[in-house]
């Protein structure tokens, strides 16, 4: 089946649950319980959004958020707010390196949190060609530092040896 591209003219989205939407197609047909997912959660989060049905099969596709109508856009953004949790690290408060385990305490846009990093080489990654750093903790939670150069000097100092 060809990919169903959703834009202002071909479809409209309504939020039906915490993270689910209803797709109303141009021809009036309705598909319930679709889960919007970002295809590039890190690199390009405003573009390429897929809508999956219960069996994780793609039934709709949004190329760019500004191609769909205002209301649908808000629906998607609201869903994403619930679905995606990638706290943005604004400050590194403490950095303990003991017994081979890295323990960070950081300040994020969602508050202060302490987590552990098991593999410092693969779990702290600077995205190629940017200043963004993606961090994965020992439980597979994700965090991001949107711009390393914007960190204060103490944070930079703490982060320094791991980049």
């Amino acid at each position: 089946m060809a990919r169903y591209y959703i834009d202002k003219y071909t479809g409209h989205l309504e939020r039906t649950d915490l993270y689910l939407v209803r797709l109303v197609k141009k021809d009036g047909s309705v598909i319930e319980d679709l889960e919007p997912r970002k295809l590039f959660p890190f690199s390009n989060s405003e573009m390429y959004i897929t809508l999956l049905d219960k069996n994780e099969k793609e039934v709709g596709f949004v190329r760019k958020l500004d191609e769909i109508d205002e209301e649908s856009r808000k629906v998607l953004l609201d869903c994403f707010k619930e679905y995606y949790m990638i706290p943005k690290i604004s400050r590194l408060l403490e950095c303990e390196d003991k017994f081979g385990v890295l323990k960070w305490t950081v300040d994020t846009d969602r508050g202060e949190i302490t987590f552990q990093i098991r593999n410092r080489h693969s779990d702290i990654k600077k995205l190629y060609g940017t200043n963004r750093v993606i961090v994965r903790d020992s439980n597979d939670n994700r965090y991001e530092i949107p711009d390393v150069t914007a960190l204060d000097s103490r944070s930079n100092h703490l982060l320094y040896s791991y980049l």
Partner: protein
Amino acid sequence: MDSLLINQKLTEAQIQTIRSLGSEEKPIRFAVVGEISNEAKYSTCVLLATDSEIFTYDFGKGEESRRYAFSEIESIYCKRMYGNGMMRVKTFDGETHDLFRFTFTVTALCDAAAKYVTDIRDGESTDEALSVMQAVYEKLLSVCPKCGRTLSAPGVPCIHCMDKGRVFKKLWKYLRPEIVILTISVLISVITTALALVPPLLTKTLVDDIIPDRNRQMLTVVVISLVCVHIIHYLFTGIRGYMLRVSGNKIIARLRCEVYEKAQYLPMRFYDKTSTGAVINRISGDTATIQAFMLRITQEVVVQFFTLIGIVIVMLCINWKLTLYSLTPVPLVVIGARIFRKKIAPFYRRIWRRSSGVTSVLTDSIPGIRVIKSYTNEKRSTERFTNAVEEWRTIDTKAGKILNAYPAIVNCLISCGGVVIWALGGNLVINGISTGNGGSISVGLLVSFISYASMFYGPVNFFANLSDSMQNAMASLERIMDILDAEPEHDFGKGMTDVDLGGRIEFKNVNFSFDRTKKTLKNINLVIEPGDIVGIVGTTGSGKSTLINLLLRYYDHYEGQIMIDGVDIRDIDMHYYRSSIGYVQQEPQMFHDTIYNNIAYGDSKFSADEIINAADIANAHEFIVRQPDGYDSVLGERGVGLSGGEKQRISIARAMLRNPKILVFDEATASVDSETEHLIQEAIEQLISGRTTLMIAHRLSTLSKANKIVVVDNGEIIECGTPEELMAMEGKYFRLVQIQSMSDKLAESRKAENFA
């Protein structure tokens, strides 16, 4: 008071709050401490459950959520989202509620909690449901429950809370055989330390008395004794170094072999929990760290301590005032060196990261050179490498400044410290000379003092850094103890050896779970008569292999019984039992050894005739004779690589040779082409005649000889009978056969087209 399961250390007040939310009749059974509020902000929120209710409490707001009685819950589930998840409750009135938002830190606990609620609602006993819950809590144990310290690997015993006496006893076991050598070596080092203190004293007499007095005779004596002192000193140092190496080697060899041996006998359960890479690291890396530490603690600490004390005593005896003067720069230098080490550590790590980045580009691209060439990606590949090298160069250049500046500063401090003694001591000497009070300080004394002062820095620095090396050793020790303390498979050398394993095999109500949280096999009842050829089919993850694993006794902690000839297999001697079973895996393991030894596999009782015979029956002889080195070809050497099918035939020969009573094939032909499959099939048929055989197979054509088919789905046997019976039933097996014969036909017609 009832015990409360909890996944994180909370304050006493918080625990009290949690307990107060339950009551005497309905105590809180478990608490899942999460990290976020329902609004996805970090805060301490807990999911709480009693025997009949589930609810949450937000410590940030001090609020309790609505309590859901299990009886009003239609379904409860955890929706895993991105970076967080939501536990949702659907009540019988059709409404869905968001109960608890969690980060992935507690996903396993939340899943288990949902299962707990469902199980109890469906009538399972609370104790049963709680024991499952408890298992999940135990598995998550990556911090020590007693002291809250992060463990070096999940589940290892905490070295800090471990009985110190026991830790010492463990280490003592390895030190004891070497104790004589170690003691001698310590004694020698006391002598060498004392000897090292002599030259400055002699220098003093040289400068003060002998040279001013022009006493050539004494000069000769002193010079000769200095030479002797040096010779003896370095001779002893050499001997001691050799002795330490010998006993150090013995310690590490013993430690390694014992850990390795222990690892051999550990049950599969251990390897499910620990990656093989981690085990390899423990045996090769951690043992070396521990050995180095043992020598450090028994030797260096003693030596350095004596040196330190010796120097101070000698110096104080000569002149206490000057001693104090000359020691003033010591703290400064020590602190400076410590700061230096702290400062440069990040640089070293960073440089290390960059250079490993270069290596990873290399290991990524050079083996993949064919792909690079076929997509003409040479330029991009070079670019990537150049970038990596450039990044390394930039960092290393930057770090170069600090890496060179700091040692320069520290050494400068030490030198300046010497100058301070010259300045102060020089003044004292001049004063003494000018006042004619020659007794206070002489030139020679000053010179010897400066030598002593410089000898002082070594031991002081050693003690300053002792804690770092101790920490490393403790982490290694923790991981090693995990292996040494684990329960081994216990049934070697005991149990029955007179059971006829060719007998009837019977699975009686077997239930099995890897970690108590999810049942992998449910209520398995199966009878295999002697000589039966049983085909086991089912989708991936259905439990086929687990069934075989139980029969092979990789896991013994199942419910129910597996009997052979009426005897529980757990009562049979492990060695006797396993050597009566021939096991052929999907991907056969070959060892870096000759083909001959790969077939004989460590058993010298077989003659060459038997081995060639086994290889012949396994259809392996024909390709072995084509090897220039024949049965002496070493696998993995100079191009002696075997194809998948060839390896498979060798592993069949290996099984064949042992003349097993029971044969187990785990998808033996899954990864070979159809012609090879035919050869292997032929080999298998020769092998199975007259033996009880179990075969797991994806390709149903492999099972043409089977007289019994068992279909496993989702941990249960859903169909069992002769192939004809199952075909007549038109159930799952029937459908599988249909699908496969259809795709076989398709493949055949495609083949026909290509050849036409």
